[in-house]
């Protein structure tokens, strides 16, 4: 086979990380943002475990298998074990925040939410809310070229 074991896993881990980052940047739905975060997190965990791997080694468990064999590095495994649990905590917090946001504004669309939040902040400071960047501020000026007369 052209690719060896570690390269395949590196491709998988980096692919997951890239997919998650792509989703974080491009999505407009708040819930899908949480899912993309979970995706990137799985990729990072795989990458960390992969950094402690060595070929032909034993799992780092005392009394498991022959004692004179080399072990894989247990430090990244211990850290990733913590990171998985913390990741679920972050997800639960994000879901709770999404429920609160939906209760307040009635939408989960990120563009609409940004307008709502900026309007709220401006109202709190007593200034006019900022104009939307998506729509032109006024009427588009007419083209100086008159429209071509219709063919009879």
């Amino acid at each position, binding site marked *: 086979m052209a690719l060896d074991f570690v390269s395949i896993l590196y491709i998988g881990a980096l692919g997951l990380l890239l997919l998650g980052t792509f989703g974080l940047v491009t999505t407009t739905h708040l819930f899908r943002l949480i899912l993309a975060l979970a*995706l990137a997190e*799985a990729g990072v965990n795989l990458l960390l*475990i992969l950094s402690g791997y060595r070929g032909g080694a034993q799992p780092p468990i005392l009394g498991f298998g022959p004692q004179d064999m080399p072990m894989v590095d247990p430090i990244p495994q211990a850290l990733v*074990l913590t990171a998985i649990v913390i*990741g679920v905590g972050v997800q639960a917090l994000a879901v709770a925040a*999404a429920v609160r946001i939906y209760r307040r504004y009635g939408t989960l669309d990120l563009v609409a939410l940004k307008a709502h939040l900026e309007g709220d902040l401006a109202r709190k400071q007593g200034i006019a809310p900022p104009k939307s960047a998506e729509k032109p501020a006024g009427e588009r000026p007419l083209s100086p070229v008159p429209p071509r007369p219709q063919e009879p």
Partner: protein
Amino acid sequence: MLETVALILVILVLSAGVLVLCLQSLMGAVVAASVVSLGVSVLFVLLRAPDVALTEAAVGAGLSTVVLALGLRKLGLWRIEGDRGEAHALVPTDRREREDA
């Protein structure tokens, strides 16, 4: 042999990852995220990290899916048949108007 298993699992995980971002139904996306977690946990077993694989399967694939599905139900985006959901309690209130007044 090991390479073949890893290749199949990586393809499964990456295609499920694409599905997370592409599926219209958010419940389907949550299930695809759970599939990603399960595939990654099998990859952890291949990487000689059985304890991490156990945790990922139980917490990453199990608990996190439950949390996300319950969140979807609370947001009214996922509905079981014959279930009113909890979305009726979540219609945006007139709180903002009261705060403004």
